[in-house]
C-alpha cells in the first residue's frame, strides 16, 4: 500500500520538512552503529509513540504488520548464522547432527536487527505520512536565500563533531596515522580534517537541488494522483467495451495489459505536453534563478529541540561504539553467564 500524506495537526506535522528528513537520517545512522536490543527497542517505541500521535494507529499498525514476517526472517538468519569466533555457544538447532549452533550473541543481535529494520522503516513512514511531498521537495530546493553566518558556523561545527567522533578509532590505535605517531598530533590532524570535510559538506547541502529539478519534483508529485485517476478511467472504458480485464488465461492477460498500456501511454504523453505548455505560459522560463516562493519554511523552537536530540543521539551512538560499548545488553548477559 502506498504511504500517502495524511492531513493533521500533530507534533510531527508541525515540524519542518528538513527536520523530519534529519530525523530519518539520524534514526538510521543510530540504528546502524548500535547493535543492542534494549536501546533499539527504546528508540523504536519512542518513534512509534510519535507515530500514533500523528496518524491513525490502525493504519500504522497494518502497514507495519505486513513487514513483521519479512523482518523476522532476516532476524532468524542473524540468529542462525551469526557466529563470531568467541561467541558463547548455547545449543544446536538440529542436535543429532550437531548442525546450526545457536549462540548468545546471535540471539541478542537477532532481536536488535529486528528492531533496527523497524526503526528505519518507521522513520520513513513518519516522514512521509506527516510531510506533503511538495514541501519535502521545496525545502531541499535552492531558493537563493542568504544564511546567517552563525547558522553556517553551527552547522559546520555540528557536522565536524560527528565526523570527528566517527573517525576517532583511526587515531586511537597504536599504528601511525598519516605518518604521525604522537597521539596529540594525530587527534589534531583528525580534527582539522573533520572541519574541512564538514565545511565542504555544509556547502553542498546548503546549496540544495537546482530549482529546475526541485520544481520538476513538485510537479511530478502533483501529477501522480491524476495519472492514477486516468488509469482508472481507462480501465473502466475498456471493461465497458467488453474486455474481460482479469481473464484466467495468461496469454490473454498479457494482451489485456498491452491494450491498457496504449491509452495510458497516450494519456501520459498528452499530460506531459499539457504541463510543459501550461508552465511555459505561466512564465516558468522567465528567470528561474531569480524565482521566488510563496511558501516560507523556517525552523521553530521544536525543530531546534528535535535536531538537538538527533545530534545527541548520533553522538551518543558513535561514542558508545568508540568505547566498545555498542552492545551493552550483550555484554551484560555474557557477564552473567560467565
Amino acid at each position: 500500500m502506498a504511504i500517502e500524506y495524511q492531513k493533521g495537526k500533530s507534533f510531527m506535522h508541525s515540524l519542518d520538512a528538513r527536520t523530519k528528513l534529519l530525523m530519518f537520517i539520524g534514526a538510521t545512522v543510530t540504528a546502524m552503529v548500535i547493535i543492542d536490543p534494549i536501546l533499539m527497542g527504546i528508540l523504536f517505541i519512542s518513534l512509534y509513540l510519535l507515530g500514533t500521535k500523528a496518524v491513525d494507529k490502525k493504519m500504522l499498525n497494518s502497514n507495519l504488520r505486513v513487514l513483521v514476517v519479512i523482518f523476522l526472517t532476516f532476524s532468524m538468519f542473524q540468529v542462525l548464522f551469526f557466529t563470531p569466533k568467541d561467541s558463547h555457544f548455547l545449543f544446536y538447532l538440529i542436535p543429532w547432527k550437531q548442525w546450526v549452533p545457536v549462540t548468545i550473541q546471535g540471539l541478542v543481535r537477532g532481536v536488535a536487527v529486528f528492531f533496527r529494520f523497524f526503526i528505519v522503516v518507521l522513520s520513513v513512514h513518519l516522514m512521509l505520512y506527516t510531510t506533503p511531498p511538495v514541501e519535502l521537495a521545496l525545502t531541499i530546493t535552492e531558493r537563493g536565500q542568504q544564511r546567517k553566518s552563525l547558522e553556517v558556523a553551527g552547522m559546520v561545527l555540528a557536522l565536524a563533531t560527528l565526523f570527528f567522533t566517527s573517525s576517532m578509532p583511526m587515531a586511537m590505535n597504536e599504528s601511525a596515522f598519516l605518518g604521525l605517531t604522537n597521539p596529540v598530533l594525530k587527534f589534531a590532524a583528525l580534527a582539522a580534517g573533520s572541519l574541512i570535510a564538514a565545511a565542504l559538506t555544509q556547502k553542498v547541502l546548503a546549496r540544495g537541488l537546482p530549482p529546475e529539478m526541485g520544481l520538476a519534483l513538485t510537479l511530478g508529485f502533483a501529477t501522480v494522483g491524476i495519472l492514477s485517476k486516468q488509469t482508472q478511467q481507462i480501465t473502466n472504458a475498456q471493461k465497458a467495451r467488453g474486455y474481460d480485464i482479469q481473464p484466467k488465461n495468461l496469454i490473454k492477460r498479457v494482451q489485456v495489459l498491452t491494450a491498457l498500456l496504449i491509452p495510458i501511454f497516450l494519456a501520459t504523453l498528452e499530460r506531459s505536453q499539457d504541463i510543459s505548455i501550461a508552465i511555459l505560459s505561466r512564465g516558468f522560463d522567465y528567470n528561474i534563478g531569480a524565482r521566488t516562493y510563496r511558501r516560507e519554511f523556517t525552523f521553530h523552537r521544536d525543530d531546534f529541540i528535535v535536531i538537538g536530540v538527533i545530534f545527541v543521539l548520533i553522538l551518543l551512538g558513535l561514542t558508545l561504539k568508540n568505547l566498545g560499548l555498542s552492545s551493552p545488553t550483550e555484554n551484560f548477559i555474557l557477564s552473567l553467564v560467565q
Partner: protein
Amino acid sequence: MAHDINFDQVSFTYAGSETPALRGINLSIPTGEIVLITGPAGSGKTTLCSCINGLIPHYHEGELAGEVTVGPYNTRKVRVGGLASLVGMVFQDPESQLVTNSVADEVAFGPENLGIPRGEINQRVEQALKATRMTGYEEREPHSLSGGEQQACVIAATYSMHPEVYVLDEPLANLDPQGRKQVLELVVKIAKERGKTLVVVEHSLEEILPLVDRVLVMDKGQIVRDGSVAEVLKAGDIKGVFRRPDVVRLAESIRLESLPMKPEDLYRELHKKYKPGKLKNVVNQERKNGQKKPVIQLENVTYCYQEGVNALFDVSLSIHEGEFVALMGRNGSGKTTLVSHLIGLIQPSQGKVTVVGYDTRETPTHELAHYVGFCFQNPNHQIVSFNVREEMTFGLKAHNIPAEEYESRIQDALEIVNMQDFLGAEIFDLGKGQKQRIALASVLTLKPRILVIDEPTTGQDPEMAHEIFKIIKKLNDEGTTVLCITHNVELAALFATRAIVLNRGHLAYDGPINELLLAEDLMKANSLELPDITKLAKQLSPLGVPANTVKFAHMKNYLEALVEV
C-alpha cells in the same frame, strides 16, 4: 504603456504538416479591445493564440513567416516566459493546466516564476481568489474541484500574473450553462475594469456577442471577416464557417433592421415595428412514443462513494426499448455515476439495476457490454490502438464475432459516423471530433441494443455537435435505445423525447422533454439554460406561439405568421 498586438503577414505551418495553419494574417489589436475569434474546428484559431504568447515559434515547431509583436516585443526574440508576464493564456481544458497540489500554490505559481517578492505574491493570491470568487478554496486540491471552479482557478492563476493581454482559448467548453455565464462575466469584468486587452476564442456566440467590441471569423487559416459586432452580423452567414445566432437570423426573417441579440430585444423590437396579431390553430408538434418493454430498470438505487456521501439517492426509473433519453443536471450531480451502473462499472450500494433482464450485480461488465454500448466523455480514454482499423476490430475480437463479419460491420459503423475514408488513418493524426466519432463507431461495430453516451459534444463546434446528435438520432430511429448525458438543452430538446434531470443524486425530473422546457423553476434550479428560441417562444406565448418551441424553422414560421396577420 500600450501593448498593441500586431500580426504582419504571418503564416505558420506545423512541422510535419503540408497545409499551413495560418496564411498571411494581417491583424492589429489595440490595447483594451475585447475581441472574439470564431470559426470552425481547424480554422487556425488556437494557432493564432499560440502566436501571441510565443508558444509559436518557441514551443510548437514549424515554419513561421512574418512578424508578430506584442507592444515593443517581437515574439521571435523573446522567450515564452518573458512574454508570459505580458500575455496571460487560458486554454480549453482547465484540468490540463493545473500543475500543483493546492489552489493557492496554483495561483502563486506564475508570480513566483516572475520573481515577485513573497509579500506581494500573497497579496496577489488573495486578490485573484477574491476576483474569481474562490476565496476559501486556498488549500483545496485543484483536481478535486468541479469544472467551473477549475476554470476559475486557472483564470485566477493568470490574473495573479497581472498580464496586459488575456488570451482565452475556448474557456467555456467544459462548463455547464451556469458556469459558462459566471466565467464569461468574470473575464469581461476583469478586462474592462483594468483596461486590458482580451482575446476570446469561442464557438457558441449567443452569450458572448453582446459583450465584445470586435469579431474575427477565421476559416482555413485566414481571417475571412473582421469588424465590429454589428458589421460582422450584418454581413450574413458563411456556410459551414459562420452561423449567426438564431435570434439574429429570426430578426432578419421578419425584416427587423436593428440587430437584436437577445430574445427579449427581439420581442421588444417586434412590438415596436409591428402590431403582431394572434396565431390561431397552432398544433404543438409532439412526438408520440408508444410504450414498449423496459430494457433498463433501476429500483431504489442508492450509491455512496464513502460512508455518508451519497452520489445517488433512491433513484427509480425504467427506460423502454427505442427511447431517446437525455440525462441532464449540473456538473457533479451524479449523471456519470448513474450511467456507470448500467454496465456494472459501479454496483448499487442499495437497490437493484436490471439491464435487458440481467442483474448488473451478477453479470460481469464485459458480458453486459454485449448489450450496452458505452461511449466515454474523453475519447482518449477509450481508444486502445494506434490506428483506426485495429481500433475497429478490437471490440469485435473481444466479443468473439466471426472474422468474416468484420469487414461489413466496420464499414457500416464508419459509414454511420461518416468516417469511411479514415479506415487506414493513424489515431495520432485525428482531431478531437474525429476521435470522438471513431470511438462511437468502434462501439457501433458491436451493434449494441442500448447506447449510453457521456457528453458527446464537449469541445465540438456547434455544427459538429449537431452532426453527432443527428448520427445518434439515426441510430435511435433504427431501434437502438439511447441514453445520452448532455448539457446542451437545445440539442436535447431537438432530438430526445424524454428527459431525466438529476440534482445532487436525486431524481429531479423524469418525463417528456417538451414539458421540462415549460418548467421554469426546475430548469433554473438545475442550471439548465433554455435555448434562445424557447425563451422567445415563452415571451410570445400569449400570442399563441407554443412556449416550448425549439426548432428554428417552426419559430420562423410563427414569427412570419405573426407579422403578416
